[in-house]
């Protein structure tokens, strides 16, 4: 069974950008170990020459349309849910700090 280390969990936390306390990471480590241990059941099955499933329906095709500008949401409607906004734009903390 795959051994999870604290570093593995730390890296996952970083990759998914979810803040996570040390205690939470410890609990998650144990859960992940158990769940990944379970899904390793798949190791016993031979899938040589089996194509990976791309879609469950076999008669779907790309949906294309002419490149015509359609109706879109008005800016104020979209911004109504923004946690912070300024001058019709979404406000975020500065990415580059000025001196």
């Amino acid at each position, binding site marked *: 069974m795959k051994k999870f280390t604290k570093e593995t969990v730390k890296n996952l936390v970083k990759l*998914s950008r979810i803040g996570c306390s040390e205690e939470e990471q410890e609990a998650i480590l144990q859960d*992940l170990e158990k*769940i990944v241990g379970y*899904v390793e059941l798949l190791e016993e099955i031979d*899938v040589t020459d089996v194509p990976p*499933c791309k879609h*469950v*329906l076999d008669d779907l095709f790309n949906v294309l349309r002419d490149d015509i500008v359609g109706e879109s949401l008005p800016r104020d409607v*979209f911004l109504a*849910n923004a946690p912070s906004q300024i001058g019709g734009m979404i406000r975020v903390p500065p990415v580059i700090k000025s001196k």
Partner: protein
Amino acid sequence: MHTLSAIEIRDKFLRGEVSAVSIVETFLKRIERYDGEIGSFLSVFNERALAKAKALDDKRKSGVKMGKLAGIPIAIKDNIHVKGEITTCASKFLINYRAIFDSTAVRLIEEEDGIIIGKTNLDEFAMGSSTENSALQKTRNPWNLKCVPGGTSGGSAAAVAARLCPLALGSDTGGSVRLPASFCGVIGFKPTYGRVSRFGLVAHGSSLDQIGPLANSSADTALLMEVIGRHCEKDATSYSGPLENYLEGIDKGIKGMRVGVPWKFLDKLAEEPKQIFTNSIEVLKKLGAEIVNIDLSILKYSLAVYYILSTAEASSNLARFDGIRYGVRSPNAQTLDEVYDQSKENGFGPEVKRRILLGTYVLSAGYKDAYYKKAQQVRTLIIRSYQEAFKKCDLIASPVSPFTAFEIGAMKDPLQMYLEDIYTIGINLAGVPAISVPQGFAKDGKPLGLQLIGPQKQDGRVLMAAQAFEKATHHLLIPELVK
């Protein structure tokens, strides 16, 4: 009124025997009286529903042709958008998110004169099997208040079971309509993948998610499917099959149909549920079905495949909840990275975090082939197994769940909770339609469901079989608590 089916309520309204306003008032009163204990609704649209009812009364008097759902109050799971109303997904992250567009399913319901009465509780972002993962409130099973309603559409199932509304929408990624239907003793239908538009359904596992009805009769289920089961250009995975009149052929019966039972896959079923399931098979025989043994032993891998694919898809889908464009942004965040980290840390519950991290793991460099690709290959084998099985039979029968509703707080281990879904998950992986129809009660008085599964795009056949089973049995009862 509350003992009537949705179709009966509509017909009474159309004949002028009852006004839409009084229908809505009846159900609002029931919600007021019972939902304090049950906790199925996250929000109730008193004013909106009454205004719509008033408009429908006027419309009917004016002699205009009425829609298929005229006057029927319908509850919507709170991960499906109703324009202008809050969509929380039962998450603290979306506690203030107001939908800026209608989901296609809701739009179609309103176009057919259905009345949206409120939004129902669920496991946060539809992740769980009991509705205990809701960050907002507990929902209790109307058959036994100590027990869970099942999940993730637990609010919709409990509301329909308690006759707080005659119809509801849920969503089903691995059993989330059928499991709560089984636990609450109502009907729950997961359509063929792509039959109902996912536009406006907050995505969990996009290759698995389907919106489906919960109801107190197969005919009501068929009626709602006639309305929402249509092609939608806003969902690229919506298939463009013709509209179907599911109600028209619903009484044809199942005489001469071959029903496959995967006996080997069911060998671990406990004594009591096995007995009840065996009785159901006898009912199907009496209705003229021929029972055949089929092999679906591949399904022992379905749970492993599901928890790789669904978490992989969820980790990608939920990346959008970053606190930038909507949702609750952490007030303490000073930098952009802190906005992401802290908003998610504060906004997501433990199960959602667990699944995002697991999904990130199975997709991460060095592991993707071993987990994700392998799971997609086994998914191909699962699809093929169903195709093979359907060469020998017209329908498949199985239980919905290995057991009845468990007590709130009893299931502590996440992996044990996942195993709850062992009989429902293969269906989503193969994209086939399946229904949960009540098949009786355990000695402790809790209901459990029979699952009837059809080949892709044979949703009508599944509804027809459910109707035949429902009419031959009498398990759709009203819980004592809410009589």
